[in-house]
């Protein structure tokens, strides 16, 4: 019997905060430059991809009650399940390292240029590790507070940036056809897909039957808010200029004023840093608990230390030294690999489980 339970509201905010913070740090630089004002279509497609993965996980989660993604993959796939589980766990770890790298790189370039990147990764890893060690209940409670903060900040920013918006800059739509925005869907799709951790959280849900409804509404709200942010930045600066910046949402807040405060981008950044903290903590929790389940350990604490000592070095990994490789990694490798794991492997597990169930029913 799983003791730590999370409510629908807490699950909603974990997913919402993950979508918002992952989009804030990872998607804009890829999407705004390449897809421009049609990016809303990419975001819609990305959301649909995520809803598809969520439906599969929901079916599996209900079928294998009180079991996590790692546990039922073992049961469904047998030996192959162990291999798939290792791939999942490496993917989770890779996703943490990538988002940590992007996070440290962004903070170091935009926020505190003189502070070494490793300082950000050390501090964030300590916080996320502390939270992961305390368990999902703690992360879920914090996500409720931080989720509300992100929502409120977003609404305030939308209101304060309204005078600078020029709707005309959002047109013409689909100037180059549907292809760029359709292909662009891999960026939000792959990052949203990290919410495959839903498979790790579902056994903790107090009301698992409502998981899909809650998850879909959280993804829709998260992607809607972030699409608005991205469209706001294009409508304020124009697609060409917005595409030049690494993070146009950050620049948008730099332009806006709030009452007497002229430079509110720092506050926005702090809010999204807290979002990243929740996302990294949830991923950290999923990877450590998943590994403990794979190796049948009684607690996941030891894995918090082991993975923590790897994640700390995210900003100094070899790929991060060369900007060409980084560009390649973030534009092609990560999205395709992520999508094939999130969508591909999950579909495979779902199909095998479906076949097994129908064979069992017939016999």
């Amino acid at each position, binding site marked *: 019997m799983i003791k730590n339970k999370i*409510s629908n*509201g*807490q699950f909603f905010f974990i997913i919402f905060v993950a979508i918002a913070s992952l989009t804030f740090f990872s998607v804009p630089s890829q999407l705004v430059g390449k897809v421009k004002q049609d990016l809303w279509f990419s975001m819609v497609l990305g959301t649909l991809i995520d809803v598809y993965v969520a439906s599969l996980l929901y079916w599996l989660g209900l079928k294998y009650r009180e079991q996590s993604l790692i546990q039922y993959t073992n049961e469904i796939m047998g030996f192959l399940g162990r291999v798939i589980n290792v791939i999942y766990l490496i993917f989770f770890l890779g996703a943490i390292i990538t988002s940590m790298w992007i996070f440290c790189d962004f*903070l170091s370039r935009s*926020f*505190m240029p003189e*502070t070494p990147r490793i*300082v*950000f990764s050390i*501090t*964030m890893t*300590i*916080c996320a590790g*502390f*939270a992961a060690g*305390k*368990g999902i*209940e*703690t992360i*879920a*409670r*914090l996500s*409720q*507070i931080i989720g509300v903060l992100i929502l409120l900040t977003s609404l305030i920013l939308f209101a304060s940036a309204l005078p600078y918006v020029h709707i005309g800059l959002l047109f013409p739509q689909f100037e180059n056809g549907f292809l760029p925005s359709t292909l662009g869907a891999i960026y939000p799709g792959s990052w949203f897909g990290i919410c495959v951790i839903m498979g790790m959280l579902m056994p903790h849900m107090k009301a698992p039957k409502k998981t899909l409804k809650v998850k879909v509404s959280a993804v829709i709200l998260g992607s809607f808010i972030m699409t608005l942010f991205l469209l706001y930045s294009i409508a304020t600066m124009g697609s060409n200029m917005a595409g030049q910046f690494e993070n146009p949402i950050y620049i948008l807040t730099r332009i806006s004023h709030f009452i*007497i*405060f*002229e*430079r*509110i981008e*720092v506050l926005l950044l*702090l809010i999204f*840093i*807290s979002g990243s*903290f929740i996302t990294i903590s949830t991923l950290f929790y999923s990877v450590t608990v998943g590994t403990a389940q794979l190796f049948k350990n009684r607690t996941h604490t030891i894995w918090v230390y082991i993975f923590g000592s790897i994640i700390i070095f995210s900003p100094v990994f070899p790929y991060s030294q060369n900007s060409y490789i980084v560009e390649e990694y973030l534009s092609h490798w990560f999205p395709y690999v992520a999508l094939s794991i999130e969508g591909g492997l999950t579909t495979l597990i779902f199909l095998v489980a479906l076949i097994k169930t129908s064979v069992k029913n017939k016999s």
Partner: protein
Amino acid sequence: MRNFTGTLKAAFEYIDQELGHSSDLSFRQCQIGSDNTPALIMWVDGLINKQSLNNDIISPLMSGSRSINRVDSDETTINFISHSLITTTEVIQVTSYESLIPLLINGWSVVIIEGIDIMIAANTQGLETRSIDEPASTSVIRGPRDGFVESIDTNISLIRRRVKNKLVRVENHWIGNMSHTKIAMMYIFDRANPDTVSEVRTRLDHIDIDAILESQYIEDLIKDSPSSFFPTVYSTERPDDVAGAILEGRVAIIVDGTPFALVLPCTLFHLLKTTEDLYLSYPIATFIRWIRFIGFFITLLLPASYLGVLTYHPEMVPPQLLSSILSARDGVPFPLLMETLLMELTFEGLREASIRMPKSIGSAISIVGALVIGESAVKAGIISSPSVIIVAGTAIASFTIPSISLSATIRLLRFVMIILASFLGLYGIMIGLFLLGIHLSSIKSVGMPYLAPFAPFRPKEAERALVRVPWFTLRKRQK
């Protein structure tokens, strides 16, 4: 177990020896019955009410016992004395010394009759207590002015007279191997969560300590996360506060010998409420409650934010404000961190000094503090006036937190935040808040999450925590 043999001399010698020939053990010899049977009445001075001893035991024994023809070990004689002669509220018959000694040291008087192997113990407890007074730690502008005293019975009566209901339950425990302190658990039967009640009961039963001299001992021993800086048990001197708490379904613990009662469970938001909220009109009470919430964050974050923003993110400050701050800081020899720490520590010193000083000198301390530090140090250019403003603002904010222990915790954590801000600016403060948030989300008070009703979110309770709900809406809801 050693049984009483019925000889007066042996009984007296044994008790005298057990109490180490203590000089406050007093006795009075008398003769009862028509056959003048010797009897001995024993008590411990200072613990009994002498008037009760005279009127309820000695006088009836000596005058009323004449009707007994022959005093012997017949049960009817003992029953007659204990049920018809002695007029105290409680009388019990004791046969062993082991049960006699605790009664004696609890203020009971014992009657021993020659030749009878049963002793009669009568409750003549009468400790001198302070009269009911306005509590010094929490004063109110509007609301009842009575506070708890050092007597547990008086304290229980102060709560009972507010909640006159048959569902109020009082459970007594005696804790302390040496002190045998009486502790009462109070709750309302169908309102308090049975799991909470049994958890508190179990924790009290598991206490193994020499003595309980104050409720802080109990607080330390039963609180969740004992290593946490945050109070998870609420302590109060006000009976109306405890009455309100048990009406909400919480459990109160009253300890003999101290005016401070404990209430469980206690969340962060319980510590930011006061009973006075209930006595003021709802808009004012809500406004004051919000001021307290803001005060909580200002106490924790104002000096750290000042330091962090000025050191790392001066661009956030509007230019005119920034130029005023910088010109005020011109010529100050200390770095910002040192200046802030110095001022905060000075203030903490002044606060401590003024608490320990007699009231008449306390004002002198504040004059010295305000004049010497506030005025002279700024004029001399040793510290800047914005720092004084920040420290003063933080101090005022810290006084808005009603709980002394929460206020002390936040004041301590403020220094951690200052250090973090000096290393990493606002990012450092965020890291501090994350760590604090994780800690607060993970601790509980007897099963209730510390950040409830916000994390986990419980809408109705959250509404009541944020707003002092007007009574008329509650009446409508009940209908």
